[in-house]
């Protein structure tokens, strides 16, 4: 298994364009462009190389899976195509093109590892005014699951080490996380490939990595639930179930309460994130704005704003609290992201950053 993995890591794909008959001279890479795309799953950064003629290309990912190299055989960068392009789009840091002996070498540097299966290298034929092109798609988010990264010991090892400043901010903080619904209450229901998807499972998939990140940075995290269960009892009324969740936070005297939900609506085109608060203390709005801002900066989810209303958990908790709706289960594109290996973790990361930002502002 290890041997196979090494082999796959070293050589992602061997790629061949039909050689033009009688073409012995080196192909030229005449231009390089990048574009961030959110219409794929996962979202990706596309690099397009314009070519003067067909080339043979070999792509490889290094062992730590954060540097992709694509070697274009018997090619050379022409004009001003060579150089380093700063992308800095989420996980993708830079793209560079240089001469490498008789070949041209494209290097994509990533901030976090990606899976080989999520990288695509393919050719596009000359079309009208467009020349022959080589296309390289690299995920703009980390797509490597915890269990497949090297040296894994225990489930929390996927959590990156917390910075000293994060630890300072979160020291002594008590945070209550409330994964919405659970047990007999499945929450909103989506459909993916003919199968039902429950809101309760997605809210937990976001909350657990968020819990680990916060604990790793020294915060005390109280969970209303950390498995698929009712918090009060099965088939309890909504008020009883929700009050039991508020009681967990109130008894722990938590500094903040964050309820994590996935939205749903009859119009499947609708998508977006909403931060709900109830203005019971001076800081509910601040917490909502800070978490909302972090979602807007870190995620490509449409904005439905920060809204005040009287959702039960926001009214009945004794501390600043927010109920975050993290996109719509009724929207096919969002459901793909919410059920992917990377989506819930990315949301957790943005919530983590938002919580840090909140405590920085009030301390």
């Amino acid at each position, binding site marked *: 298994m290890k041997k196979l993995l090494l082999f796959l890591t070293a050589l992602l794909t061997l790629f061949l364009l039909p050689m033009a008959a009688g073409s012995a001279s080196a192909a030229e890479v005449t231009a390089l462009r990048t574009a961030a795309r959110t219409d794929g799953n996962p979202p990706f950064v596309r690099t397009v190389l314009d070519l003067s003629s067909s080339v043979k290309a070999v792509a490889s990912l290094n062992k730590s899976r954060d540097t992709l190299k694509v070697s274009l055989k018997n090619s050379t960068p022409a004009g001003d195509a060579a150089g380093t392009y700063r992308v800095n789009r989420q996980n993708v840091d830079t793209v560079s093109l240089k001469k490498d002996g008789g070949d041209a070498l494209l290097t994509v540097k990533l901030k976090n590892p990606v899976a080989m299966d999520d990288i695509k290298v393919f050719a596009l034929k000359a079309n009208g005014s467009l020349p022959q092109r080589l296309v390289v798609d690299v995920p703009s988010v980390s797509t490597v699951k915890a269990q497949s990264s090297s040296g894994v010991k225990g489930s929390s090892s996927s959590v990156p080490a917390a910075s000293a400043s994060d630890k300072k901010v979160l020291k002594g903080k008590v945070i209550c996380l409330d994964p919405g*619904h659970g047990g007999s209450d499945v929450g*909103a*229901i989506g459909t993916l490939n003919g199968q039902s998807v429950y809101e309760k499972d997605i809210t937990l998939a976001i909350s657990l990595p968020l819990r680990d990140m916060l604990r790793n940075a020294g915060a005390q995290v109280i969970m209303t639930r950390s498995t698929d269960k009712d918090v009060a009892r099965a088939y309890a009324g*909504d008020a009883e179930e929700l009050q039991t969740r508020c009681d967990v936070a109130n008894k722990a005297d938590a500094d903040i309460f964050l309820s994590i939900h996935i*939205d*749903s609506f009859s*119009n499947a085109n609708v998508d977006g994130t909403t931060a709900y608060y109830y203005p019971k203390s001076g800081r509910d709005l601040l917490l909502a704005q800070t978490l909302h801002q972090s979602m807007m900066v870190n995620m490509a989810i449409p904005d439905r704003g920060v809204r005040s209303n009287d959702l039960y958990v926001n009214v009945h908790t004794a501390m600043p609290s927010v109920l975050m709706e993290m996109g*719509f*289960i009724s929207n096919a594109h969002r459901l793909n992201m919410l059920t992917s290996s990377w989506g819930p973790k990315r949301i957790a990361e943005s919530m983590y950053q938002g919580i840090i930002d909140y405590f920085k502002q009030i301390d």
Partner: protein
Amino acid sequence: MKKALLLAAGLLLAVTLPGCGDVSRPPAEKQTVSAAEEAVPAQHEATLVTYLPDEEGLRVEPHTMKVTAKEKTLKNALFQLIQLDRAQTYPLLPTGLTVKSVDVKDGTAVIDLSKEIRKLSVGSTGETLFVAMFVNTATEFPNVKEVRFLCEGQPLSKLGGHYDMTQAFKRDESMIRMEKK
């Protein structure tokens, strides 16, 4: 209103003109309509305002319809609300939902919904809209200050899992998108 009517008459003219040589007929019809409208005493007319979700699911929008004075009842308003929602492109309310009874006492309207309401599968967006639809429609009636929901005669203790649905709900103007002039 007069302008709209004139425009409508003009449109009718344009449409009927190619197949009809008598250009004086449409204006004549228009006069007949106006006369008929004027013949109805104003006090016998009433407007019924219901609140329906917008297509984005962000707010509810007022929908005004003309009814006779005796049709302006809370039960009819809620009946129309359900019919109008079901006729929308993206209906929010479950198929077959009816209002079994409605009772107003001391400013509180108690709305008894049929069992179909339990099929409402919603996030907080849908649940908030459901409340805004019924409560804002009901509180259009001056004698209604707040609303309680029942399901088949019992308190509606379970719905979307975001609110205490057994509480009395007051009108929430912030959920209403006002009509543009």
